[in-house]
């Protein structure tokens, strides 16, 4: 081969290589990158299609309209939110500039009545374009939601109220929240707010549970040890050279399991927890969805119990009383008390009750689903009775309702910020539970019994009086 021919072929090969690399790059882009690029909120195509469709309304369990869309003067649909910040963490928002969060994101295709894109559906949408989306009927009770938010009184914290027998969420509040209607004006302020209004504390706030965790430890003790054996509480217990104190160093004297729970005795639970062991505690925690992803209609964080870590006795003792490395979300705590109320079975929590087609047909109904076996009905009943005693004569008396047996547990969680979180988790009526409530007040600086229990009580009273 002569020099000229060889060089010509080199140039030809180089150009061919360039073209082939174009094809390879294009295919790579289409297979691996296109999906993410396409869904960028700056892609006007996403919106032009959506704004031609009447996005479905979102209504509460009684049919009250919470969010709806209406045609604006430039012939595209606009989204309206009726209750300011009340549903900021449940419904979320759908704005061209800021994208979507909450149910607006998770149920986007249903609200727009868009099917999965298959060639058949695309063909169908050309022939008969869909113009109206489905309506979401929530499990939320608007009155209870509004009432609960009012009870928080502007304090940072979260409330979850649900039906323990179906795990339908009646109310879910996270405060601070943000006004869905003024997002454009307030976006920057909200972004920069140190209290993080965007953060959903109810589903994703991982708090130290403090003494509320003792109901879990108690179930392990009940199943593994003798609940009636007497323990002498001196106001503190020393494990491996480290001292764990009772609240204000108070000595509770001779206590069994029930008395220890009623008085929220740290010494008892710390030493018994060590006896039960981290594996047993971890197993039980897992049975109540701790360390597991809770399936939910909006994203929820995973609660953690450190049983996979290499724990010393002191760590196990701390974990047994809900301190140390234990973190729980309010939603998860609501599942724990609902599980106890529901004969030990843990159900999947739900926010969406029904999906209703534009023609008014119910096209999907929320089915109750068990997600974990929890504990035996025997254990659940025993613990329930002890929790009733907590409210009747223990730390939770502020949650008591006249003529109704209320079960509950308080928690005052020490945390690195210095000011403790106040917890209350409980349900009522104990014999035929209809409402389960969890209240967390972030950095309340007060006890669960004083700060959180009264709020929970009022919610339970309101729920029992108003829910049909």
């Amino acid at each position, binding site marked *: 081969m002569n020099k000229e021919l060889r*060089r*010509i072929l080199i140039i030809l090969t180089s*150009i061919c290589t360039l073209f082939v690399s*174009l094809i390879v*790059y*294009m295919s790579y*882009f*289409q297979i691996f990158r296109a999906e993410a690029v396409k869904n*960028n909120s700056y892609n006007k*195509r996403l919106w032009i299609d959506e704004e031609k469709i009447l996005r479905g309304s979102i209504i509460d369990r009684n049919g009250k309209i919470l969010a709806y869309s209406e045609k604006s003067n430039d012939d595209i649909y606009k989204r309206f939110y009726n209750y300011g910040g009340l549903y900021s963490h449940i419904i979320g928002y759908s704005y061209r500039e800021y994208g979507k969060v909450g149910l607006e994101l998770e149920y986007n295709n249903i609200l727009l009545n868009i099917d999965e894109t298959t060639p058949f559906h695309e063909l169908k949408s050309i022939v008969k374009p869909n113009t109206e989306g489905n309506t979401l009927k929530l499990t939320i009770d608007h009155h209870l939601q509004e009432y609960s938010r009012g009870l928080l009184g502007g304090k940072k914290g979260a409330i979850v109220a649900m039906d323990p027998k179906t795990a339908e969420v009646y109310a879910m509040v996270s405060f601070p929240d943000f006004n869905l209607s003024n997002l454009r004006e307030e976006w920057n302020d909200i972004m920069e707010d140190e209290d993080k209004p965007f953060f959903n504390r109810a589903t994703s706030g991982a708090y130290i549970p403090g003494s509320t965790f003792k109901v879990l430890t108690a179930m392990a003790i009940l199943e593994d040890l003798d609940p009636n054996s007497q323990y002498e509480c001196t106001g503190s217990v020393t494990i491996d050279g480290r001292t764990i104190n009772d609240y204000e160093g108070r000595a509770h004297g001779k206590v069994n399991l029930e008395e220890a729970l009623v008085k929220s005795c740290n010494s008892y639970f710390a030493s018994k927890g060590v006896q039960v062991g981290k594996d047993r505690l971890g197993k039980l925690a897992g049975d109540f969805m701790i360390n597991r992803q809770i399936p939910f209609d909006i994203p929820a964080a995973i609660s953690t119990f450190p049983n996979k870590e290499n724990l010393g006795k002191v760590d196990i003792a701390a974990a047994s009383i809900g301190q140390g490395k234990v973190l729980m979300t309010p939603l998860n705590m609501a599942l724990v008390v609902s599980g106890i109320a529901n004969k030990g079975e843990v159900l999947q929590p739900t926010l969406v009750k029904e999906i209703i087609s534009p023609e008014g047909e119910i096209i999907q109904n929320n089915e109750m689903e068990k997600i974990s076996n929890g504990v035996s009905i025997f254990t659940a009943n025993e613990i329930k009775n002890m929790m009733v005693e907590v409210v009747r004569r223990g730390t939770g008396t502020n949650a008591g309702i006249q003529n109704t047996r209320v079960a509950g547990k308080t928690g005052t969680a020490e945390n690195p910020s210095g000011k403790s979180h106040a917890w209350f988790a409980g349900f009522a009526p104990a014999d035929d539970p209809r409402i389960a409530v969890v209240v967390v007040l972030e950095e309340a600086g007060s006890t669960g019994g004083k700060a959180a229990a009264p709020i929970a009580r009022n919610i339970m009273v309101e729920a029992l009086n108003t829910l049909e």
Partner: protein
Amino acid sequence: MFKRRINYRVPRNLLVLFELLALVLVFVYYKDDFNRNILMLGAALIAMIYIASFVLLRISSGDNYIFLIVTMLISIGIIMIYRIDPELGIKQIIWTGVGILLFFITYFIVKNIDGWRNWILLYGGASIGLFLLTLLFGNRIKGSLNWIVLGRFSFQPTEIIKILLIFLLASYYANHERYKRVQNSNYYLVGVLYLFIGFLFIQRDLGTVLLFYSIFSAIQFIYEEDRKLILYNALFFLISGIIGYFTFSHVRVRFETWLNPWIYIDNKGYQITQSLFAIATGGFFGTGIGLGYPDFIPEVHTDFIFSAICEEMGIFTGIGLIMLFLILVYRGFKIALNQEDKFFKIVALGISVLFGIQSFIIFGGVLKMIPLTGITIPFVSYGGSSMLASFMALGILQVASEDLDLEGIGDE
């Protein structure tokens, strides 16, 4: 002869079929303002292409595939342009007609005039003259000062200079023995190239800078005996590129929006991100003609036509377009290899590199594979200058594909 005609008839008929189907789709999309004129123009386009390829088969003994490939490219282009803006589509059909005419005119002139290899000074002089004309009378359109407006018409002199550059290079290397006697003549040639590049840089036409440099380097790589010079040329280009990056903000912008356009999505990264949205939305099969939103992309009918094609016809059509250019380049090289006459051999190489690199620069640019520099896709993008110059180049390539008995004028 008979067998040969059969061979060409099949692709020609397939092409007609493709055009019919695609035009029907476009007409369905614009069914509301459908009228007889549009139908006539559509029929005229098909007839024009069909007759031209038929005539070409009769008069030229050379390669008949390149014209077919080009008509396929034009068909895809016109369909897309018409779908984006019917008015521009009609204009493009007219430009195609004029282009085909110019193709035949160029073919006859280049074939019947002798002595192309000897007019090196004319090519150089004409190029510099056109550049100066652009500088003096040029209008800045879309950031590039490379248009001359004459009454109702505007044209880009650089389109012509591309061909002059190829002729210049071909006449230099075809008469290499003669010019070698002039000391350092090859350095003068590099000097001329950088003079051109300098002019283009003033016009801010970075895509064409890259194109000129590629054509020059390819020919130089094949024919330059002083291999050191090739290295110097590459180094010099690299260094001036780096200096350009730090001195000129419009060079820097190209790189920044290439590395990460998403952070500039509201301003300087807008075009390229809109292009990526379109390509991503199209998927493999596209949304279908008339069902996408290519008009979200600025300049979609010229530089970004490829993104529009990918959105509505899918990246399979996009890949098809790339393949068509690949075959066109391959045919061009084959023509060069079979050509005995050295001048036309080099011209064929130059034109093939021109088609190949020009399309690569803009394909890669809108895909964000390489920095984006505005340049048209030959035969596909909307635009008269680009269409006419491309057809002229094609006409010349057609001449080069024939057995020429121009030997013996005393170059070797």
